[in-house]
């Protein structure tokens, strides 16, 4: 807006200039795709339980497929594998708990920290 000369302007014109300036959009804008970013964030946050259940079912499915394949193609390895797993059940359980804990801390602390900074 060109700077007008006060001497040329009436009060009504000054009022109009002021109102026009008040109606001017701010220079700041949201990034392109803001709506998509927010939507993804909202739906991930609210469906976190569903995502974990799906991941767990997927892991169980992969394990079951591997077991079936082993039973079909190398049945002689099944018994030693099962006995080894039973012997090392606490180690396996410990590894699973640590992996889940790392994932949980990553989601709750690290991701949230970087989202807000």
């Amino acid at each position, binding site marked *: 807006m060109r*700077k007008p000369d*006060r001497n040329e302007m009436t009060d009504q014109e000054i009022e109009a200039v*002021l*109102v026009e*300036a*008040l109606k001017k*959009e701010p220079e700041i804008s949201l*990034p392109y795709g803001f709506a998509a970013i*927010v*939507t993804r964030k909202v739906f991930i946050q609210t469906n976190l339980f569903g995502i974990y259940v799906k991941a767990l079912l997927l892991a169980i499915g992969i394990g079951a497929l591997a077991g079936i394949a082993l039973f079909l193609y190398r049945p002689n390895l099944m018994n030693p594998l099962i006995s080894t797993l039973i012997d090392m059940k606490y180690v396996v359980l410990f590894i699973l708990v640590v992996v889940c804990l790392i994932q949980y801390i990553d989601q709750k602390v690290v991701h949230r920290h970087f989202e807000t900074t």
Partner: protein
Amino acid sequence: MLPEEELVTKILKGNASAFEVLVKQYERLVLHVTCKLIKRDEEVMDVCQEVFIKVYKGLGTFNFQSKLSTWIARIAYLTSLSHLQKYKAENINKITSDGLELDNYHFSEDTPAKLLIKKDVSAYVQYLIAQLPLSYRTVLTLYHLEEFSYLEIQEITGMPEGTVKSYLVRARKLLKEKLIAYLKNE
């Protein structure tokens, strides 16, 4: 554009696309409210995101007693205030400042950088608005930029209608005086 009720119903049924439509429809409003209250640009996007997360979580309680835009603007206003309180970016007492404060209000002195701003009338007015107390900035934005009525501004900010009118008149009077002085090259 979908009617408000239909849009809300779809979102409540878990339709992500409907929510994206709502965000696109109201992102400009939310941005205007937050950016007038929060001065640090890098924080504005975070607050806008927070506003829409609250909108999604609270949509089930929206009862269509008011317009959706008014309800969202209120969430944006309250979220911005709570952000300011949390980070103490601005003295929160200014939020509830009364008219006396504006009567004795002094704009900061000009520096060469600020004088550059004065080359443009709009930029100069924006520069003056940015220095006003928070309540005045909010009322001016909601009334002029978003064209809300006095009653709607009352609903959004919780200020009585009389206070809204008084803030508008005082802020505009002060800005006009400053603008006249500027145009006279005082």
